[in-house]
């Protein structure tokens, strides 16, 4: 398998340019689908290769349960820097598995708790809760999910803005955006290089719902106003997440995007633009990642089968 086994660990870097450009240059639906699919594939390949490295590393440990022949020189020769890489892969893979497990469990728990909180109420598509604190969430469910909105939020909005808000939440639920969000969330835990994709998809999924809401209520400004009013209801965070460096946060960027004309919906950007090149780079990186992890898996399988006495 040679050096190929290391490639999928760093190939997520090829998705950075498109994660940066997709937010502003692609239709949010295209961006969300492209980035989350890429993140999923890259994360799976990276984890698979960590697993392969770990097999080689574990076989060399004294007292391991694997067949003795798996630490033969031929097997070790299949992997460059076998001692360091093999051993380092063991804690790395464990960290990835624990981190993903914890994240998945937490998400499941949050969803269960939110469902339990609403138990006993009729299963309507919109649930209004008497609470002065303004909030609005899309809570995905097994069948269709529901939008949960507080009276504090509703009283602050005009009736058109309310329609925009409901359309936005319905778009999240109908488009099953939480699947994309979960994918990038777990992917970012599997390989830290995928974190920019998580940030990007968290933004593009909101933009996607904004665009659908704008189409549903027939007014981009109305959605922009709803977002602006809702965001200004809550007091600003006193401690900025990253002072000054980050520039405008997601909410002002969403509003600004809605005050511009609607983005063109294309499935794939033209090649000879910055975003087109970035998208092709990411596609190339993802393909290379899939090929090299498949190549490494097959190579290791064949080597181990040859080494194992029948």
């Amino acid at each position, binding site marked *: 398998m040679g050096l190929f086994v290391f490639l999928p660990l760093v190939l997520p870097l090829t998705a950075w340019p498109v994660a940066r450009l997709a937010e502003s240059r692609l239709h949010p639906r295209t961006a969300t689908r492209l980035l989350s699919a890429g993140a999923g594939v890259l994360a799976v390949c990276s984890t698979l290769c960590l697993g392969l490295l770990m097999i080689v590393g574990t076989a060399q440990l004294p007292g391991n349960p694997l067949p003795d022949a798996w630490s033969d020189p031929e097997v070790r020769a299949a992997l460059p820097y076998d001692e360091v890489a093999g051993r380092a892969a063991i804690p790395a893979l464990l960290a990835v598995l624990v981190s993903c497990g914890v994240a998945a469990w937490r998400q499941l728990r*949050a969803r269960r708790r939110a469902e339990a909180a609403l138990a006993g109420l009729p299963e309507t598509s919109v649930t209004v809760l008497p609470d002065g604190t303004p*909030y609005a*969430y899309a*809570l995905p469910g097994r069948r269709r999910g529901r939008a949960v909105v507080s009276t504090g939020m509703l009283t602050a909005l005009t009736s058109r803005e309310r329609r925009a808000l409901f359309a936005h939440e319905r778009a999240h639920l109908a488009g099953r955006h939480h699947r994309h969000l979960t994918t990038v969330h777990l992917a970012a835990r599997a390989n830290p290089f995928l974190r920019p994709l998580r940030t990007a998809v968290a933004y593009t999924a909101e933009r996607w719902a904004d665009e659908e809401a704008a*189409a549903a209520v027939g*007014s981009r400004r*109305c959605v922009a106003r709803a977002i602006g009013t809702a965001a200004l209801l809550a007091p*600003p965070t006193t401690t900025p997440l990253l002072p000054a460096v980050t520039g405008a*946060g997601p909410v*002002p960027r969403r509003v600004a995007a809605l005050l511009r004309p609607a983005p063109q919906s294309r499935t794939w950007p033209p090649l000879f633009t910055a975003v087109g090149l970035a998208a092709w780079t990411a596609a190339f990186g993802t393909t290379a990642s899939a090929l090299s992890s498949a190549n490494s898996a097959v190579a290791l399988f064949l080597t181990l089968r040859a080494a194992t006495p029948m």
Partner: protein
Amino acid sequence: MKDRSGDGTGPSPSRRGQGKLEAHVLSVLKGAPEPVPVAWVQERLGGDLAYTTVITILTRLHGKGAVERERAGRSFVWTAVADEAGLAALRMRKVLDAEADRQAVLASFVTALSENDERLLRELLAAEPESPDLSAPPSSPEEDR
């Protein structure tokens, strides 16, 4: 039924059932003409709940601020102060406060603003005239794919 505090950390398959039970007890208590003892609630719940279970549920509701109690002799009498939607709101707030990792599950309509964001947002909205807008998007979302 085991007593489980409302903020128990383990995921429980019966949590949803518990939530329904709480809502049911609250709706029964809501129908009481005056502060009532536990036995009154138990009677109207239709039988198969133990006295201690009803006390547990009422205590939990009290912890959430959905019912009030006052001493009458050696025991308490209970009054509902929230309806089912109010109880759900109280529970939901607890979930929202507790789950730091909720972003991927519960997509919030808006996220918190920094001070810089707030200034930017006010500028954006102020620059926008109140006039009725005619900017319907040129393409419908179904066209793609």
